[in-house]
């Protein structure tokens, strides 16, 4: 119901999972698989040199050859500085990604423009009306109403907690009747999603000594 970007969640988990699989498999293979272990023993220094080369890479350093020594090379470590900037950007992008999870509640359930001005229906109106209608219902131990922004429109979520043994259909029909009254009260039909929860588990048999 909220604005969580689920595709992005999946993507992040997938990417990190793949990185973990590659690192884990490499670490495991280098110890347990003889071929990989041999290759690593022969090439370890070459690999390390290559990595050192990446970090030392500097386009401003004088090219070895013709005028080496003529101009003083700029000794700014390019790669680490670019690396820092990239790392900070990654962190800056991930923080709003985390903060956006679960947002999207709305304080307003409906807006309309009429001849004499605008009408704004706040969530509390719908929540109180539905709450009053459903609070005395024996079958429910709690009723919570919230409004959410969906595609620039609003939808209501009615979450009810049922007592043990209540038929889910009866529960939903009870809410549906209350919502129809709300329709008449407000004069608009809001999309309503009902969440029926339990909180009481189906009875489990106790152990019997035999």
């Amino acid at each position, binding site marked *: *119901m909220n604005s969580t970007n*689920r595709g992005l*969640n*999946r993507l*992040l*988990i*997938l990417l*990190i*999972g*793949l990185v*973990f*699989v590659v690192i*884990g498999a490499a*670490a*495991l293979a*280098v*110890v347990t698989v003889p071929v990989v272990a041999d290759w690593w023993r022969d090439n370890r220094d070459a690999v*390390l040199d290559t*990595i050192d080369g990446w970090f030392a890479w500097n386009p401003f350093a004088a090219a070895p050859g013709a005028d080496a020594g003529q101009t003083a090379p700029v000794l700014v470590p390019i790669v*680490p500085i670019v*690396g820092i900037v990239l790392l*900070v950007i990654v*962190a800056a992008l*991930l*923080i709003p*990604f*985390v903060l956006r*999870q*679960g947002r999207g509640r709305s304080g307003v359930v409906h807006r309309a423009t009429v001849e004499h001005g605008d009408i704004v229906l706040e969530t509390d109106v719908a929540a109180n009306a539905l709450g009053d209608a459903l609070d005395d219902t024996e079958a429910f131990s709690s009723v919570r109403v919230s409004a959410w922004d*969906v*595609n620039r*429109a609003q939808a209501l979520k*009615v979450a009810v907690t049922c007592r043990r*043994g*209540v*038929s*889910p*259909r009866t529960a*939903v*029909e009870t*809410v*549906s*009747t209350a919502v*129809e009254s709300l*329709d008449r009260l407000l004069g*608009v*039909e*809001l*999309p309503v*999603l*009902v*969440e029926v*929860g*339990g909180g*009481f588990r*189906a*009875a*489990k*048999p106790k152990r019997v000594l*035999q």
Partner: protein
Amino acid sequence: MTPTATTPVTGPTRVLRRLARRELHSPRSTAAILLAVLLVLVALWIAVETVLALIGVRPLLVAPGEIPGAAASLPTTQPVILAVAGALVLLLGVVLIGIALGPGRRHRHLLSTGRVLAVVDDEVIASALAQRASTTAATHPDGTSVAVGRRSAAIRITPASGMPVDRSEVDRAVAADLDAFGLQPSLRATTSISSNGKVGQ
């Protein structure tokens, strides 16, 4: 859903369908948030270590320049630890890929009636079925357990000693209830009666 006079049926229904689908699947927020926070911490730590190394200050934990060399010598210095750690990281990676690509279904069913669309926790369905089964079989509610899956519900009844239970009667009653609920996807119930009775109930 019944068509209504004031709103076109396509609008709310489509929005509702989409909302319901979202409620039936996990957003995987916990895993994503955890990984994102870890990633931010690691990124900032490496950035700080790099700055410290550049200005020549003692590193917090390890200087970044020493990491490749230290990691490269692990196969010879700590082979067992490296293998175990590698296996654990590999396993964690496989689990994460499973979370990312799996359907991530929540234990819920869809129920559409009248004016609203509803998602019902399987727990509620199980509780209602248990109630029906125990009243039909005239056993104590504590002697009935129900496990609800995506397409099936397994009912187990432990009768009171010496009081036989009619299995087909329970089957019929529960099937009628499931029909009336009209859940999506629909459930098929199977009843089993424990051969050992329970004394005193």
